[in-house]
């Protein structure tokens, strides 16, 4: 047992685990679990990305031209036609297959990709290190959370083998369409309940760890911004996810047990009355869903903000501008995110007075978001900036998230939302927040904490290639979406050209496809870099970035139990360039 005696689950000592299985597969060490999450969620991101590539290919050339000759198909088209058979005859997608890919792309990217990467992977790995804890509060619960997540992901993917394939009702699964949808949707509900369970286990662990296992001297006001972001995120997950669990349970019962929570009286389906008692309300699903899904947006965002704050402070060599303001704004974002959900539902026919209320709360929540962004921007001022790969990603986050946030304002106003709702404008808006925003920050985090995880740095040149080949194409994919949406092109259409008013903006889709191809190619240097650097990267010491926070005070990679001697914290997290100190960084645990 470690001498400091941080509280531990009974029976979990700190002896070295022995067998391979205990050490790398069924490990209770937060670092191994974090890396398991990292790899799994990157795999899921790749799967979701692949689905997106197919959809973009379909959208670029949605239907055969008049002079289409099946004998003279391009190599790409004939290959795709061969692989997917009747789902993509002659390489043109069947509309229901398009719906399946759309639903799965959203579900995978959000619930199996970005959230596990931002919260579970980096949270698991870095959070205990940053607060100076030897492990999470409930290590076995932590392991369970990963395996439940993996099972949930596999169940979700297995819906492919259900009759009629993947669920088709979009990641939002609006009732009553989702009630009458093919069996894949049932699998979706079950998988969601499993994933939510995993997430709840994780958030309980995060909350207890952060509150209870801080090192001596690590007061709440000395916690790094990333830890604060994880704490707020965990609270959001803890309190918002059960409501969706309730909603998903009701949807499941509607589908399999003949209840009618979301089925109105005498609902017509096809040409007959749907066989259920009726009396429910489909809008109820929207309320329960968005009560989770809006906080979920901030679950995607807050860890990214925390990461960017860490990277910026380290690489500008000066304290963050407004630490307290950033933390306060994050907490405020967390609180407000629970009272804005119905701005996704202005078109559902809600009464104007209620819509006005949600317009007001929505515009209010933009204030703390802008405050965080402004603080991060001002942190750059007068800094001796090091333009390494993590810093490039962090810097790119600022304008990208800015575009994402500002394009959200017209969606927060009910009058403009009535036009823009369910168009590509919405898609462009939230992808700006999540892809070049959150995901870029998470890639930056990978470069930033890689030396801690594996003891070696990633290659800088490859990293910079990866950076430019990621951020530039992303803008060529998502910015045209804003044009298309303002023009009135609806989302979720396998063939937008069927609506003639979309023809003038159809050409953008071809550009977006090529940009997506560049984006795909741009990930090759990253993958190569990730695996190559495991053995050949520049050896990193304890503290390769000369940073101040506690994760850099233990060996890279940290041993089981993390710290050689339990750290003691003497100052705030970002004491850079303190006048009179011998180096330009003053680690939190360095005695004065």
């Amino acid at each position, binding site marked *: 047992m470690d001498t400091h005696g941080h509280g531990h689950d009974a029976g979990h000592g700190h002896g070295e685990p022995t067998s391979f299985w205990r050490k790398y597969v069924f490990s209770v060490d937060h670092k191994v679990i974090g890396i398991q999450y990292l790899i799994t969620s990157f795999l899921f991101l790749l799967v979701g990305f692949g689905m997106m590539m197919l959809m973009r290919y379909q959208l670029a050339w949605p239907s055969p031209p008049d002079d289409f000759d099946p004998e003279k198909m391009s190599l790409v088209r004939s290959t795709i036609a061969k692989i997917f058979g009747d789902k993509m005859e002659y390489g043109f997608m069947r509309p229901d297959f398009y719906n399946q890919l759309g639903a799965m792309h959203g579900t995978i990217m959000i619930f199996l990709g970005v959230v596990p990467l931002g919260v579970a992977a980096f949270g698991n790995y870095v959070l205990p290190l940053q607060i100076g804890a030897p492990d999470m509060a409930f290590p076995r619960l932590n392991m369970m959370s990963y395996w439940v997540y993996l099972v949930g992901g596999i169940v979700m993917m297995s819906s492919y083998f259900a009759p009629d394939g993947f669920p088709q009702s979009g990641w939002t699964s609006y009732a009553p369409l989702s009630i009458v949808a093919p069996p894949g949707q049932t699998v979706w509900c079950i998988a969601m309940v499993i994933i939510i369970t995993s997430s709840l286990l994780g958030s309980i662990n995060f909350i207890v760890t952060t509150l209870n296992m801080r090192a001596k001297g690590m007061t709440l006001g000395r916690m790094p911004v990333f830890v604060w972001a994880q704490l707020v995120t965990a609270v959001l997950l803890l*309190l918002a996810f059960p409501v969706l669990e309730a909603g998903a349970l009701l949807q499941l019962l509607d589908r399999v047990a003949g209840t009618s929570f979301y089925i109105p009286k*005498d609902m017509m389906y096809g040409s007959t009355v749907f066989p259920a008692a009726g009396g429910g309300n489909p809008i109820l699903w*929207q309320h329960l869903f968005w009560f989770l899904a809006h906080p979920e947006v901030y679950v995607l965002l807050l860890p990214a903000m925390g990461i960017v704050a860490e990277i910026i402070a380290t690489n500008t060599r000066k304290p963050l501008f407004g630490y307290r303001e950033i933390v306060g704004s994050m907490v405020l974002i967390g609180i407000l995110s629970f009272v804005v959900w119905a701005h996704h539902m202005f*078109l559902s026919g809600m009464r104007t007075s209620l819509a006005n209320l949600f317009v007001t709360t929505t515009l209010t929540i933009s204030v703390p978001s802008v405050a965080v962004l402004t603080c991060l921007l001002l942190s750059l001022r007068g800094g001796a900036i090091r333009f390494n790969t993590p810093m490039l990603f962090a810097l790119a986050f600022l304008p990208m998230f800015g575009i994402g946030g500002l394009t959200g304002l017209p969606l927060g106003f009910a009058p403009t939302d009535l036009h823009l709702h369910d168009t590509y404008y919405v898609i462009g808006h939230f992808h700006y927040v999540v892809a070049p925003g959150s995901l870029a920050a998470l890639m930056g985090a990978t470069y930033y904490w890689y030396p801690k995880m594996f003891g070696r740095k990633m290659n800088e040149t490859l990293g910079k290639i990866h950076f430019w080949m990621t951020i530039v194409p992303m803008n060529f994919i998502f910015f045209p979406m804003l044009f298309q949406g303002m023009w009135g092109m609806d989302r979720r259409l396998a063939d937008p050209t069927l609506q003639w008013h979309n023809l003038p903006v159809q050409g953008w889709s071809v550009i977006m496809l090529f940009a997506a191809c560049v984006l795909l190619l741009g990930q090759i240097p990253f993958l190569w870099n990730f695996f190559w650097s495991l053995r050949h990267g520049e050896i990193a010491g304890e503290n390769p970035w000369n940073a101040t926070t506690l994760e850099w005070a233990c060996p890279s990679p940290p041993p089981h139990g993390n710290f050689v001697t339990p750290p003691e914290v003497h100052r705030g997290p970002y004491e850079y360039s303190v006048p009179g100190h011998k180096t330009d960084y003053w680690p939190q645990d360095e005695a004065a």
Partner: protein
Amino acid sequence: MSSSHGSAPAPHSAEDVAAEVRTYLTIFGALAVLTLLTVGVAYMNLPHAAGVVVALVIAALKVFLIATFFMHLRAEGHLIKGTLAVCVLLLLVLIVFVLPDLGLHPIEEIERIESSHRPSIYHHVGEHAADAAGTAGHEAAAAPAHGAAEAH
């Protein structure tokens, strides 16, 4: 040593525990009386609104007693009390914000919908739109949810 760390140092002396037991039994008596009371009131067939208020007040009182004394919330610090307060507040937000949208239809309106036996595909829209019609004429025309696609 564990229990000596809580915000309320565990007493453990026999007299203290005996006092605790007396409190528990008193609370048990109160809960029993309240249960009988709520059932009795239900059988009095009060006006609907009054009946709802009385039943909810009694339920809230019972919840309060259980949480305060059986779950020792009285002795807990701000952290745990605050967490619970946040939960209750969020649920209130959920109910209060959704009720005017989907619930609380005036009785006359419900009767009107019931009396107009329209086996129409838009019946469920009518249910919702009838509510919106009073305050939001222009939005009432919009079909719920994914009606957006059809609107074009």
